[in-house]
């Protein structure tokens, strides 16, 4: 009839029952009946025994006989309830059939339920199951309640309830904590509002009244000054109306949450997204946003606005010579000065500008950093171009003061290009481009000035652009050629090498290097151009080797940035290997200025080149400011005396002095010395007498195409038929022309 089935499917263990009855017969039968129904029964014959057992053991349910000698069921129940951990233990009190008094006393003693003693065991088992189930549900409820409380606590969140009828606001313990109060604090709406600063309180109350009037949802952030320490917090409030059966608002329930940290994080994120981390100025994104808003306002209100593009002159030099840290320091100081030139506003501006008033566009005024050493000043309203020029001049003036970085005063100047809306452009992109054009015009005219955009400037820019794109195609179109100028040893009257010079034949016209090399350097095209020149020189060396046994070197001019490339050595190696000529067939010339500009980065390259047999020649020597100490350690082979000293040779004594010094220096350092730009016999004679016998110049030959150079050799050098060739039978020394030396 009653098979022994597990009483509870979802519980692996048999529920533990503590059965307390002083009557052995009942105890025996009841426990047998309960065991039969799957309970794990522990028996106790008195209240005292039961309490002792509970000292170190926790059953799932306690069944207590009400009437017992000694400690009776009621007293036992009371003591059980007082024990820690037994507050919600289910306790079933067994009473007699007609014992109403015991039932009442059972509840008073804290029993969960009562059960009239009966021999109908299944009824008792059923009641116990019910008790266990409800106890478990209650435990889960309490656990989830405490979880919720903890979650709210972690989220700095709390709930509240407002009843319209009672006009009362009930705050949860968690809500009180959010506001910095202990759980027992009594706090009403009025008390809460007193914590909100005056102005905000009025607008919040207005909002609340409006929301209640429309039975709508409340969703707001409120600033609150917490009681202790006067900390200011941002509290987020959300509440929804509750309607009664008549559809009338009965009250509001909602939550509060301390969102201060999130707000701060949001602000930081917005700041990072909109401001330059180095200088703290608005970044490109924020600048463009502000400019767009300024243009909208200008369009609407019909005024002009100005964009000033500010580029520091020779900033790269500071970075290169003093290091990036110094460069950063300098930019920071520049930013500080620029900021003082305008009514700079640091506000993070996003979204709409409404509500700030008619002149709200004034808030847009700022200096921002576009990137690198480029800054923009946005003037949201200018009366005319003179307004903008005044600001530009103020900027240039402020830059005049030296900036102290890395232990020294740096002089930084700026070039400023100005574009005005609507005259010079209708869009942000147009204004930025045209201010850029104007700024480049300033650079081209010698920097350190400001200029207004002018359509003609753009024309010049376009020309430059065309040239640049044509240069891109020059290599593949075979428009580039190398011309070669011989280096002559006048003592032996023979050619000892050549210098390769790049020429660009464009549309049948020969473009001189001065017209396109700077452009190539600016655009970075110089790198493929130089690499092409190296390959070309190696090819020519091979051709001449086969043709007339050429075994000297071809000097190729390289800009300093090419020496910074780690693949330069490999590139030269590849070129000479490809054409099967020795490494020394290629000699590299770097200008003294170029070398000194970036000495630290160039030196490693020089060493590696030297190791593979490529010699280095210093071009235009005497024009830069070489550190003589460096010269002694650099792996160089040749100095080329700048043509400016040669030109005046035999005319001013100073030139001779410089030439003499350079020649002496070269000799004592064991370097070859070559004089460039030799045009007259007199110059040749002086140089020769000073001890310099290798020369280059129109006196011997202008730079020639490869084939012509070969013909020149055949017709001039080999037959020894040229004015500069001293007949072999004459005196060992060349004829010295008359005149002061």
């Amino acid at each position, binding site marked *: 009839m009653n098979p022994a089935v597990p009483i509870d499917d979802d519980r692996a263990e048999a529920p533990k029952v503590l059965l307390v009855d002083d009557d052995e*017969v*009942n105890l025996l*039968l009841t426990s*047998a009946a309960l065991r*039969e129904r799957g309970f794990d029964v522990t028996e106790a014959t008195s209240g005292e025994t039961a309490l002792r057992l509970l000292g170190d053991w926790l059953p799932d349910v306690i069944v207590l006989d009400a009437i017992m000698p000694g400690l009776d069921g009621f007293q036992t129940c009371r003591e059980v309830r007082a024990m820690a951990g037994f507050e919600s233990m289910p306790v079933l009190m067994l009473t007699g*059939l007609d014992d109403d008094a015991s039932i009442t006393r059972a509840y008073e003693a804290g029993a969960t339920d009562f059960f009239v003693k009966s021999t*109908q065991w299944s009824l008792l088992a059923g009641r116990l199951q019910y008790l266990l189930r409800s106890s478990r549900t209650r435990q889960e409820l309490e656990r989830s309640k405490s979880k919720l409380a903890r979650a709210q606590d972690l989220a700095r969140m709390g709930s509240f309830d407002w009843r319209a009828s009672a006009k009362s606001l009930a705050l949860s313990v968690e809500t009180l904590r959010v506001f910095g109060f202990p759980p027992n604090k009594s706090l009403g709406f009025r008390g809460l509002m007193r914590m909100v600063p005056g102005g905000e309180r009025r607008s919040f109350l207005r909002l609340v009244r409006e929301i209640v009037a429309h039975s709508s949802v409340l969703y707001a952030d409120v600033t609150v000054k917490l009681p202790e320490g006067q900390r200011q917090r941002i509290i987020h409030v959300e509440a929804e109306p509750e309607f009664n059966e008549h559809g009338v608002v009965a009250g509001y329930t909602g939550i509060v949450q301390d969102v201060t940290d999130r707000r701060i994080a949001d602000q930081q994120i917005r700041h990072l997204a909109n401001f330059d981390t180095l200088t703290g100025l608005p970044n490109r994104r924020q600048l463009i946003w502000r400019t767009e808003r300024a243009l909208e306002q200008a369009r609407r209100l019909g005024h002009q606005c100005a964009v000033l593009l500010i580029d520091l002159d020779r900033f790269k030099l500071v970075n290169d010579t003093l290091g990036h840290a110094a460069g950063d320091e300098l930019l920071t100081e520049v930013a500080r000065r620029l900021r003082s030139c305008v009514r700079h506003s640091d506000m993070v501006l996003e979204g709409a500008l409404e509500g700030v008033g008619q002149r709200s566009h004034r808030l847009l005024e700022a200096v921002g950093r576009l990137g690198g050493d480029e800054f923009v000043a946005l003037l949201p309203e200018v009366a005319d171009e003179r307004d903008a020029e005044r600001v530009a001049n103020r900027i240039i003036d402020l830059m005049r003061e030296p900036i102290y970085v890395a232990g020294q005063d740096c002089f930084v100047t700026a070039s400023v290009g100005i574009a005005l809306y609507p005259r010079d452009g209708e869009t942000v992109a147009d204004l930025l481009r045209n201010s850029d054009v104007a700024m480049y015009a300033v650079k081209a005219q010698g920097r350190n000035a400001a200029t207004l955009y002018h359509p003609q400037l753009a024309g010049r820019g376009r020309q430059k652009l065309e040239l640049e794109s044509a240069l891109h195609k020059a290599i593949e179109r075979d428009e580039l050629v190398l011309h070669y100028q011989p280096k002559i040893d006048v003592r032996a009257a023979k050619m000892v090498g050549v210098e390769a010079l790049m020429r660009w034949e464009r549309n049948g016209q020969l473009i001189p290097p001065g017209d396109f090399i700077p452009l190539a350097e600016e655009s970075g095209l110089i790198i493929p151009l130089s690499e092409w020149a190296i390959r070309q020189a190696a090819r020519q060396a091979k051709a001449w080797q086969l043709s007339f046994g050429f075994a000297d070197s071809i000097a190729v001019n390289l800009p300093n940035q090419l020496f910074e490339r780690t693949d330069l050595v490999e590139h030269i190696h590849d070129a000479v290997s490809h054409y099967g000529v020795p490494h020394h067939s290629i000699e590299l010339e770097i200008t003294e200025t170029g070398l000194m500009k970036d000495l630290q980065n160039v030196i490693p390259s020089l060493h590696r080149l030297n190791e593979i047999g490529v010699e280095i020649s210093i071009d235009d020597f005497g024009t830069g400011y070489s550190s003589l100490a460096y010269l002694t350690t650099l792996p160089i082979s040749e100095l080329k005396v700048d043509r400016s000293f040669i030109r005046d040779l035999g005319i001013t004594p100073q030139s001779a002095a410089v030439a003499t010094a350079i020649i002496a220096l070269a000799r004592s350092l064991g370097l070859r010395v070559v004089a460039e730009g030799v045009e007259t016999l007199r110059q040749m004679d002086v140089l020769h007498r000073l001890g310099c016998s290798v020369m280059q110049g129109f006196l011997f030959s202008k730079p020639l195409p490869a084939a012509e150079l070969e013909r020149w050799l055949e017709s001039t050098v080999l037959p020894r038929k040229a004015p500069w060739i001293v007949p072999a039978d004459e005196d060992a020394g060349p004829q010295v022309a008359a005149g002061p030396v």
Partner: protein
Amino acid sequence: MLNPDHSLRDRAGLADAGTSTDEVLDPQALARLRELDPAGKTGLLERVLRAFEVSVARLVPQLEQGRASGDLHAIAHVAHTLKSSSASIGALELSRLCADCERRVREARIDGLDAVLDAMTLQIGHAVRALKHELAPRA
């Protein structure tokens, strides 16, 4: 309502004469007891009898002493305890007498209590005997 004295005497006489277990122990209650230990594996019935005997051996002197000294509280305690244990083993008449006794003490109706107590004593003897008889075929 029946005159308790009359009914008591009536039943006491019946019980006196009868030796059948059925008349002392309620068959339904016995059946429920057997269900708790259908195969007799745990020897439940025997343990119950022993427990009942022990209980009676403890309670009867308490009852006698209570009667001698007129300690109604002690009498009520014995009646209360026996009330449920006798019901459990199916000694319904004994249980009824115990309940009657308990009620009388609670309501302070002393007259006629002696007769009830006498009947109780008699029924205790019957119950113990009947239980032993019940166990005999199995023992």
